[in-house]
């Protein structure tokens, strides 16, 4: 945002948000992605933020990734970070079942309540794949939830860095595929619904009156 005044050194700026119960490894996942290292980090207080520049699909992207604290006490504050996010990463711990069930019971509702972006891409991420022996949530369950909620799904490990890059990449590719999100991400681009869409005769599909 502060770079908008200069020559932008990127094609698109996307805002991503990470949510999920405390201790599922959101910050570790983010660190694993941004600095390619793994640490057992101390719990996030409120919110953390990282920027990563990536090249995806031939585009230079600036990813502003917001990492929120899972503790419910911070939840009222984190609501503001949903604003304008093009992608939301919902993280759970494959070894702890409650972190998975809370996604549908708590976090999905938070998204509905606070997300201002109708087209925003959601991604379900099962972390701590390295602790396969303690697994409490099957991959099938994850897939089913993702299907019901209409989001992407991947299992990964912040520790072994398995699927970490893919997780972010896939999300970003999906955002790049969504014109309305793309329009937001690029500065100065403007959409005109009156010019874009010719009048449609089918009442149920036309989204313009």
């Amino acid at each position: 945002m502060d770079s908008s005044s200069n020559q932008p050194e990127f094609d698109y700026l996307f805002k991503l948000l990470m949510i999920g119960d405390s201790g599922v490894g959101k910050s570790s996942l983010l660190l694993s992605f941004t600095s390619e290292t793994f640490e057992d980090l101390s719990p996030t207080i409120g919110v953390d933020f990282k920027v990563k520049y990536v090249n995806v699909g031939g585009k230079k992207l600036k990813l502003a990734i917001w990492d929120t604290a899972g503790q419910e006490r911070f939840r009222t504050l984190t609501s503001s970070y949903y604003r304008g996010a093009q992608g939301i990463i919902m993280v759970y711990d494959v070894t702890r079942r409650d972190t998975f069930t809370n996604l549908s019971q708590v976090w999905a509702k938070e998204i509905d309540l606070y997300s201002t972006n109708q087209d925003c891409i959601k991604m379900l991420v099962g972390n701590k794949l390295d602790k396969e022996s303690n697994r409490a949530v099957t991959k099938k369950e994850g897939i089913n939830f993702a299907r019901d909620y209409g989001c992407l799904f991947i299992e990964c490990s912040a520790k072994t860095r398995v699927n970490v890059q893919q997780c972010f990449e896939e999300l970003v590719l999906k955002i790049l595929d969504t014109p309305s999100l793309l329009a937001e991400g690029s500065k100065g681009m403007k959409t005109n619904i009156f010019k874009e869409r010719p009048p449609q005769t089918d009442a149920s599909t036309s989204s313009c009156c």
Partner: protein
Amino acid sequence: MLMQVEHFDDFTLASSWERFISEIEAVCRQWMADGPKNLLEKGAVRLEFSKNLYKVKSELKYASKSYCMEYYFEIPHNESKGSVWNFSLHEMQLCFGVKEFLVIAPQSASGVVLDAPEASKLLSAVAIALSNCSSLLPVVVPVHDPSRKAYIGIQNMGTVFTRRFEADHMGTQVPVQLMHLEGLYELFISKFAYSTLDLSVHLFKVHFTMKLTYRTLPYDEDDDVQGTDTEPTESEGNPGDDTHNKAQWDDDCPWSEWYSAEDPIKGFELIAIWSEKMVESSLQMAELENDSPREADKWIIFPQLSQNLSDASNGNQVGFASQMHLLIDALDMSFEAQFMEDFVSAVENPGPDNLKASRVIPPPSVVDRVLKELFREGMRDPNFAKGEHKNSRVVKGAPLESLFAQFCLHSLWFGNCNIRAIAALWIEFVREVRWCWEESQPLPKMPANGSIDLSTCLINQKLQMLAVCIERKRELNEDFEDCIGSMDQASPRVKEDDPVGEESDSSIMWTPGEDFDRKCDSPMTPENLHGSGMTVSRFNNEPEDVGLADLKASDCIRRGSAGVVGSMMLLKSNQRMHTPLTQDAPLMTEDMHEERLQAVEAFGNSFANISSEFTGLTEEASSVILLQNFSAQLERDILSSDMSAFKAANPDAVFEDFIRWHSPKDWEDDDAQENKSSEKLPIVDSDHGWPPQGQLSQRMSEHGNIWRNIWNDAPALPASEQKPLLDPNREGEKVLHYLETLRPHQLLEQMVCTAFRASADTLNQTSHGSLGQMAIKIGQIYVTMASVLKPLQVDRLSAGSEIIEDLRRLCVVLEHVEKLLTVAASLHRKFLQAPRLSEAIFSDYYNFNLPRMGTGSLGESTEMTFNKKQQVRIHERPVVSNMFTHPTANQSWRKVLSMGNLLNGHEPIFREIIFSIRDRVSGNHYAAYPSRVYQEEIETYRMYICGTSNDLRVALSVVSCD
């Protein structure tokens, strides 16, 4: 060579008359050869009213006159089969019972009118030409003045038979007997009676079918003048003083608070059809005339729509859309000035702008009335859910019932929404808001609790913030006056006086200082807590019971407790863990969030790493980090505040206890099984398994953990004694500063968004039954609004920009929806007892309008009239019949009834009858085609009669043997 050709011509085509015939013949041959399919490709045009009737035309010259010959033909179509009363029939088809036909007439441009001899000459020319190419097409020629609709025609039937057509019209002075079915029947009989002299004896088998059209009386015939008079006054902002006005049709529609719409449905026409029956005597006809239309076989209804409805270009229909147009004009003008005050003061130096005249500020009395409605009325808590559509939130406005949304709606109708009137009203509005602030009066129509809804516009967020600040200021003042500063008095009082568990309610009443602390806890209590032991509600789990037990031990020092946490015990002291009352997270409007985000982003990438090494730094270095952690500081403050409150509520607690409460996942129980059982039965045995066994998670227990550092520094202080996270005085003043210095275009942008949303929310409340299309349409308009209004939030608007154009288009879209809704609402209330009909008619109207609603482009109007008809089912007939109210004495003396078949005292406005006689004609006439015609019954005589109470038109077709 050339001579030879002319010579040849002279021999074959003797006269210009013959040339004319051969010209016609050539055209007809071409048409016949082409056939319907090729003609379509060659540009035959479909007649507007019909689904399958097309025509081609060709111009011909004879003598000095030019003629136009038209060929009407049908493309087989699966729908329009059936009844003779098919609504898509061409006049000629109806009159003469033909399918395809030719019409030849002088070019209308030449203004030639055919007299009878000339018409028959023309007719015979075509007839000759047609027989030359052995075509069996009927041909008709208009005679006399076109308004008379008189025709003659002829058809070669392919045998010795010829059918002749004749139609004429009687404009005035219709003989009385021809007004009655009996007389018309006899007229028909007389056409062939010459062949059978004993008319009275012979019984003719006459086929008869009839179609009657009735029209309801206009709904508001008598008050038309008055009704149109009041509307302009209203739009100038005086909806209050129209007491002389009688009840409008839309009085209970949601928009009637702001304007009165013209009833789009002026009335209905009902068509009653008697299907074909055999009539054998004139007596029978007389009986038929006494039939009530209730006995008709088929009822068909269609609405008569108001002229204004179909007139898309006519923008003077008052409604939300019309006012939104004005508001957008104001937005366009708002870039002219720095402050809203500039628009008001501009009156002293009248510029060259001649628009100034229209920019009048309504008199102070009107301003006062609006302010009174905004600030004095409806002090009760607004019901924000009212009128809210599930899509409302996508439009960045304000809830319909909120202060700012109401301000926007009032400005729409205030001084016809010119920029100066808006400015004047806004200044008074802000003055009034400041008064509330200075006097600590609750802000009306704004909730003083909850969190700030970031999906609303900034002004609404600011007002929400102000409402909360005022509320907190009041609490602080009350605390000050009552000299109740500390909580340790309050808590025991609660427990003594209110053992029933309504603890939270009563504490709000008694100790306002505790109020918001309590509220802040409520979001933490819902059932969706973590699945640990904390799932048990912190309040309701019989707090008194255990609380009293605890009181004995540490009553004197425990402060700010909100009750115990399930069965959780402290680690280092055999006591129950208490939930502290905590401070609410500070409220922030979106601009404050934005500031924070930018700060985090500016320093962001590094702060987490640094903060993890927070300990062991010098004073100087840590202050640098504090600066860098500008945003994280807030969260840290909250954490610290929670820790202080926890310490105060649990004097003997250690850091691990806090973690167990605050971040339960960072506490690992040694015996999870045991924990679970105690979770289910929390009060069975409170001493069971004390002290709890377990340890902090790896990440919490690491050396130099920042949480522990904050814990160590946090003093034990109940929330009520802590420095508030939100300073109401400062934040409230900031809000007022924002409102008072708001740039005109920023105000207008938010007004546009909010007014759009509020208009849609208002319209959304209209009851229209359950019209699916309407519901979809309304859902869509929010989405459309959201996407058009989005650029407004980016704040890069300038006067006359493209966005203004888009906004105007959006108004047109809104206008469509508004019109549709008035139609839907009007239909709904007229067909309350027959919802299927209102749905069907609305659906027709909707589909009729659909092609025109797509683009939202300006001034596009196609000349089409809505004429879709709906069949009325038997059980719906009473509803329709009730619409034909018995005429009042006043209405009935105006008219002398002359036709029969009255419906509740209404005579048909239009009557159509077809008589026919069919014959199997004896075989010997048909030597050429014996087998074909033998089986066929042909209409030897057919008469079509249509008329109103003062005119009559008769068309006759007769088959004769020449």
